[in-house]
């Protein structure tokens, strides 16, 4: 029952973020608790809206039943940002989440889909070295005071409570959307950094030429 009820959370958050984004686009920033409550209510109705005998949220779950906790945290962060103007996941935590998404995705998907004889997905059932590795990663991030550690704590809490349909720890940590967004965010950051380095170098060269001509 708890798994079924929890399956509505992500679709509800997505609906809320979408409505908030529409409000931002029509120049009505959705700040404030009352407005957020109202939009949350509308999103809830949308998620529960029956289409062809099934709530809209369950139609989304039919496509993918296991939206990972980091993706849930990103959606929650966006909704919180729209509502309050502040972020739960700061820049440091966002970077950690994108790096985690890329690393976990690259470690999991190619091999899980048939590359080689080893399937890392099997490590997510029962107990394996994946669990101590996650414990260590969480503790290191906590010592670095990185808020992404709280998301990792939420992952293991969700796993212990069996909040997702999956009984595999990997599904609490990553999903294809989260990995895609992580790869896109890091690639975008890399391109911007390379572009900035290139323009800085051009500027330096220009200054050097100017100095040479005045000398």
């Amino acid at each position: 029952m708890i798994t079924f009820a929890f399956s509505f959370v992500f679709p509800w958050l997505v609906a809320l973020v979408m409505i908030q984004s529409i409000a931002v686009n029509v120049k009505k920033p959705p700040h404030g608790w009352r407005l957020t409550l109202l939009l949350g209510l509308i999103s809830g109705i949308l998620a529960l809206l029956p289409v062809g005998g099934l709530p809209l949220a369950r139609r989304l779950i039919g496509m993918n039943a296991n939206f990972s906790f980091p993706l849930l945290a990103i959606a929650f962060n966006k909704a919180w940002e729209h509502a309050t103007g502040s972020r739960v996941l700061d820049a440091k935590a966002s970077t950690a989440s994108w790096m985690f998404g890329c690393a976990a995705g690259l470690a999991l998907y190619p091999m899980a889909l048939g590359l080689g004889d080893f399937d890392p997905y099997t490590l997510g059932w029962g107990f394996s070295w994946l669990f101590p590795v996650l414990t260590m990663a969480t503790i290191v991030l906590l010592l670095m005071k990185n808020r992404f550690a709280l998301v990792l704590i939420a992952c293991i809490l969700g796993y212990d409570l069996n909040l997702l349909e999956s009984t595999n720890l990997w599904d609490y940590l990553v999903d294809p959307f989260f990995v895609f967004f992580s790869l896109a965010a890091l690639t975008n950051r890399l391109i911007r950094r390379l572009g900035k380095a290139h323009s800085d170098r051009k500027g330096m060269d220009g200054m050097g030429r100017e100095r040479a001509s005045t000398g």
Partner: protein
Amino acid sequence: MSKRAVLVAILLTLVLHAVPWWRWYSCGDREPPRFALRQPHSPSDRGLPQMTEEFITRDTGSRMVHVGSICEMTDSRLVACWYGGTREGAKDTAIYLALRDPGTLSSWSEPRVVVDRDSASRELRRYVKKVGNPLMFVDTRNRLWLIYVSIAVGGWSGSSLNVKVSDDGGKRWTPSTRLTLSPLFNVSELVRNNPVQMSDGSLAVPMYHEFLGKFPEILWIKFDGGDFRFRKTRMAGGRSFIQPSVVVRGPRGAAVFFRSCSHERAVGMATTADAGTTWSDPQHLELPNPDAALNALALSGGRILLAFNDSSRGRENLQLALSSDGGITWQDVARIEEGNGEEFSYPYMIRGSDRRIHLVYTWHRLRIKHVVFNEAWINVELRGALR
């Protein structure tokens, strides 16, 4: 975060991570189980040769049926299962079941629907476009299991596995439970061949993945206290072998035969010596395989019987072959079916409590055929083939 908050969070992390460890430690299944061997077969079958043929389904002329499986309950009733509809992948496909009481005079009951897209959608509480590829079997507690695929988007590669169990011979079933077995949208996991009973009461169900890679796997599943506990392991990676058929040869030893989907159109084979934990690298045998399902069965004296399409091009025949050396070399036993441009596919065999062998297969995609024979018949056919 203050130092105190960090300390509390670290403690919380350790406690939360101790839960899965404790669950794993306390469930006591850290030691891999062995294969549960069935009653030993006598070295030879002294009965008279027997071979009978019948159809389980009626000829409707237009409705497609496919992927049959058969099992025997403790009261000797046979249960057959398959899927059918107006065409493969049509929205009206449903999983059917028929029963046959023991005794030669009885016939198969009228097929009845176990699950269709509407009931699957209701039970799984999500959109289901179609259902298909069922596998039915009985466990040691006489519970009837049904594992079937449901598809929400796309074709067979978009399929996910679901399971139902019945305590009363298929009258009432538990609601379908979705098994999450793949990290990529949980798609492309399918079952085909006979499960193996394990010593701890769990079942090892041969399965396969066919999305980007095409490879064989084993689903380890147990139904206890209304909950399914499961995991899977891989038999081999790559893009060459699917639809494993496992033949147990000892408490820890087994051979597995694969449908080949590589350019090398030949049956694949691998072995295990640790009850399915690890498998040898698959090798191609000299038996042809037109990228079609096959099924293997253990006979007396360590012999293995294989039902397969004896062609590298199509499914126009159905052949039985026998191996006396663990699957390395094979002798033809009998051609069960043959016909130009026709289809005989997806064989599935079991050994009944009366030691007879039951073979079901798809006949022209229009009917499910049931052939019954004993080892004496195999021996006679083998002698005939050798002459």
